[in-house]
């Protein structure tokens, strides 16, 4: 299969996982908040692990271009939050009643997905197993994100099936950016350290600005810390053991 199609397939599969996040709402009215906290922590650990792998993979030391790329990645997410007026937006306020809150969360999820797509795309240029693993980490992150988004939308009168569809639609930028950044780095290998740094910086910032603070509100800090560090350890084992690299 053409490598670009492989990237398209994996990133689409990861994006579709957002819809799966609506499933818990079929079963019960109230959200299992602690379980969402743990799955967010799992996603945070996997994404930090992937960022670690991006920074050490194939690079004896981080080149200047990689460091600048990381600053751009951090700056990109910071800037999109600032410009869209969502810097302090808590994405998990289920009791929030203002109508525009639903749009804001949808917008932020779309912006986040773009940065995550770059990570999938650049990881695919390293190797197929590493790219597939990065797509898996993002997919794990998309599930609880979809759950919370669906809960917020359904309390605003959106039907559950439509909410699930919107949760997937918010991830479409992920697919687009995965394919674009893969094609870009393949066509211009000189951009590799820049895009790599961008993806790593953006992921670390996203985890710190969004996932971690929300985890701590959903479950106790000891359990969150344990889940996160175990997920990071698994990535370190897989990467250094040569399973994904």
């Amino acid at each position, binding site marked *: 299969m053409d490598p670009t199609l492989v990237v398209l397939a994996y990133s689409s599969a990861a994006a579709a996982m957002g819809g799966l996040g609506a499933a818990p709402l079929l079963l019960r009215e109230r959200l299992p908040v602690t379980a969402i906290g743990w799955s967010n922590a799992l996603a945070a650990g996997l994404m930090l692990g992937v960022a670690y792998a991006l920074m050490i993979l194939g690079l004896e030391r981080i080149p200047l271009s990689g460091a600048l790329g990381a600053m751009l990645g951090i700056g990109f997410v910071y800037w999109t939050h600032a410009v869209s007026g969502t810097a*302090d937006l808590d994405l998990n306020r289920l009791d929030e009643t203002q109508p525009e809150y639903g749009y804001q969360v949808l917008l932020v999820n779309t912006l986040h997905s773009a940065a995550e797509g770059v990570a999938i795309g650049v990881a695919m240029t390293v190797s197929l197993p590493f790219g597939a693993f990065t797509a898996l980490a993002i997919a794990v992150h998309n599930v609880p994100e979809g759950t919370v988004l669906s809960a917020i939308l359904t309390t605003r009168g959106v039907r559950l099936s439509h909410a699930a569809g919107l949760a997937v639609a918010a991830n479409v930028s992920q697919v687009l950016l995965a394919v674009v950044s893969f094609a870009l780095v393949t066509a211009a290998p000189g951009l590799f350290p820049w895009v790599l740094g961008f993806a790593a910086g953006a992921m670390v910032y996203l985890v710190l600005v969004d996932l971690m603070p929300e985890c701590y509100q959903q479950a106790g800090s000891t359990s969150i810390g344990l889940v996160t560090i175990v997920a990071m350890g698994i990535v370190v084992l897989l990467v250094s053991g040569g399973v994904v690299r």
Partner: protein
Amino acid sequence: MNEVLVVLGYGLLTALATGLGALPFAFVGRVSENTVARANAVASGLMLGASFGLVAEATQYGSWQTVLGAVCGVLFVLATQVVLRGHDIEFGRVRGAGAQRMFLMLIVMTVHSFAEGVAVGVSFGGGMTLAAVIVAAIAVHNIPEGLAISAVLRPRGTSVAACAGWSIVSSLPQPLMAVPAFLLVEAFAPALPYGIGFAAGAMVFMVFVELLPEAYDQARRPSVALLVSITMLGMMLFQQYL
């Protein structure tokens, strides 16, 4: 001169360098709740960056050994937390949760110095020709560690001089471990991935379970995230280029 004395002396020099990490706080004025959160974020970034570097190094010796060491590091922090909670701790004028956090920070950073000391001794075992370069490198690496310790102690009222003192104390295991590791390289080298993994696991867990939750409580999320991610990147670059 006796080589053992040279290794010990160099080790002491690197420990003293840790005290330099307290210096920036001589220029920081009034300390508010927000300063505690920001300092926590800086310490978190330094410790995460240092751990990423340590893990990258340790996994070259063996990945299972590194992760096993990290598991022990996490368990060590959990056990220390339980012990500290059972006592009414005072640290200077601080009591309660703040004092426990300060103690835990000192314990974690001191224990992590044991592993670093072994790494120093083993690297000297390769010959004394590069000794001065290695010492300079380690001394420089210790400064941000002193900064991380001071970032946790200083905003809670510890004086700058005391911050420097505690930073140096936390590094004293380095010369103590460097000498036996230098004399018995063959015996110590296999322990290296476990030791480094232990240090990294303890530091990362300390960040997730103590430093970050407090930072998010008291400062806006973007400022915490910016400080952590930028200091983390800075620490990784610092370690690679200096």
